């Protein structure tokens, strides 16, 4: 399995408003666009636009439930996006661990030097 992340996925999750909608969908399951619009500080039209982008990126899907259209998160795709970010985060963890080791070694070296001088 590759950590391939396509442009649509990157740009879909890059927007804070869309991440807010994803948050709501992840914690609440199948909900309608108007339910979402009642819980975000932007217009219903904006919600519809963001949902369309998320749907194109295959991060959400919709289905009919009676007369309502409900949206749900596509967990596999969300995992893919989160994994790609985790890879980048792990890279920084490794770099910070190296910085820590180098700085602590330099500090110990300097303290040893001070003791010899004094």
């Amino acid at each position, binding site marked *: 399995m590759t950590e391939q*992340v396509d442009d649509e996925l990157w740009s879909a*999750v890059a927007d804070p408003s869309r991440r807010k909608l994803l948050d709501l969908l992840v914690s609440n*399951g199948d909900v309608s666009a108007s339910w979402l619009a009642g819980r975000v500080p932007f217009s219903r039209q904006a919600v519809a636009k963001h949902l369309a982008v998320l749907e194109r990126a295959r991060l959400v899907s919709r289905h009919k439930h009676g007369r309502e259209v409900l949206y*749900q*998160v596509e967990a596999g795709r969300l995992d893919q996006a989160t994994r790609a970010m985790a890879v980048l985060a792990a890279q920084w963890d490794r770099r910070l661990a190296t910085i820590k080791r180098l*700085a602590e070694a330099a*500090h110990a070296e300097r303290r040893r030097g001070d003791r010899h001088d004094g």
Partner: protein
Amino acid sequence: MQGLTIERDVLVEAPPEVVWRTITEPDQMSQWFADRVDLVVEPGAHGYLQFGDQGGPVVVEIVDPPNRFSFRWNYPGGQEPGTGNSMLVEFTLTAEGDGRTRLRVVESGHELRDWPDAERRRYADEHREGWGEFLDRLARVLAEFRPQRRR
């Protein structure tokens, strides 16, 4: 916060002045970041980072010793890094008493990188090994937040 942002931190058992040298001196940077670092650490200075047989330009933004250091980089690529085409890396150093330092890093701009899919795949492949455990943990956390189907 705009865009995709990575935020990490670490507690270092050394004072900020020592940590500062580790993150800003090119011969030290080449041990934790690129294989070779050609850079003068001054605001606005342009340099180059070499990773294996590839490399990319780097531009220094903020140099405020021993508290803040930031730069933009663009790898792999030949374009000069600027807003809209590169990653911004921001280090913040905070003294924590007993000669310790909290080192925080924020990297933003990943969604702006313009690189071909093959390159992106290779980059991800190169950095995946050894991270299985971390990814497993993340997957478990994600699983707990999965929506309950209400059918």
